């Protein structure tokens, strides 16, 4: 799928949007949970030692990982640029104490972590609000941070050829053209397009929920 030429929101706009609306993000769980279940089924989190999440949002997925999916000794580091998201996710993950850390980001992604410091890199429903260049930059950061054999685990809003999704995307695109902020800056995307050399695609599936379609992608960092 070609990248849309429509404008994307700036980092400052994204921060302001999610500071204002972020606390309601969990209401989208009915649209996201099927994609998360598919992701969890294909990314072997039971073997993970350290998970890094770019755009951790409310920390809902991190909470599930730490409580039910990861081994007890595994650690989690999340990043977000919204003050509201940082507050909500820290509060949600506080019971995991030192196992879970949430740090601020600003502007283009510069993740302050050492090469090879994680074995799972999560980016769920965040790459699709970035410019293609910034999404590719995040994937390059994932390549730097993941140890050989580690997994990039992503979900994005995606396109499907079915009539409900086409109708949904028509409305979504019209709103996005009026103002990207009406739809939180998100646009349907194909995350495979952002994978450069150094990856082996391990799993890619479209998950439909009502008229909304998500792409679930798991790619392995090659040695």
């Amino acid at each position, binding site marked *: 799928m070609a990248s849309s030429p429509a404008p994307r929101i700036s980092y400052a706009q994204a921060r302001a949007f999610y500071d204002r609306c972020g606390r309601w993000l969990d209401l989208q769980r009915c649209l996201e949970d099927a994609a998360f279940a598919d992701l969890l089924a294909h990314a072997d989190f039971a073997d993970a030692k350290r998970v890094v999440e770019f755009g951790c949002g409310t920390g809902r997925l991190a909470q599930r990982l730490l409580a039910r999916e990861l081994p007890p000794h595994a*650690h989690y580091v999340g990043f977000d640029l919204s003050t509201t998201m940082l507050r909500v996710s820290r509060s949600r993950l506080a019971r995991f104490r030192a196992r879970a*850390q949430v*740090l601020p980001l600003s502007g283009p992604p*510069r993740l302050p972590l*050492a090469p090879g410091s994680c074995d799972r890199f999560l980016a769920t429903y965040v790459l699709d609000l970035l410019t293609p260049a910034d999404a590719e930059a995040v994937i390059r950061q994932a390549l730097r941070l993941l140890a050989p054999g580690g997994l990039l685990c992503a979900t994005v809003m995606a396109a499907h050829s079915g009539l409900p999704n086409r109708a949904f995307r028509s409305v979504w695109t019209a709103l996005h053209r009026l103002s990207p902020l009406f739809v939180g800056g998100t646009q349907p995307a194909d995350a495979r397009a952002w994978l450069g050399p150094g990856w082996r695609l391990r799993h890619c599936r479209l998950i439909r929920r009502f008229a909304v379609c998500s792409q679930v992608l798991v790619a392995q960092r090659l040695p």
Partner: protein
Amino acid sequence: MPVSPELLEILVCPDDHAPVRLVQEGRGLKCDRCHRVYPIRDDIPVMLIEEASVEADAPPHG
């Protein structure tokens, strides 16, 4: 709760990816390559370039 040792092990400078070390009695993390000091606020490292100060190395005692 202070910054966890597990996190300190993997934190690097966001600009040049050099290691950082605790300074200012645990209130900052310094990159010895670019001399930026990143603040630690409420036990959370703020690894943002725009939040960092630049601290030259102390002159040798003589």
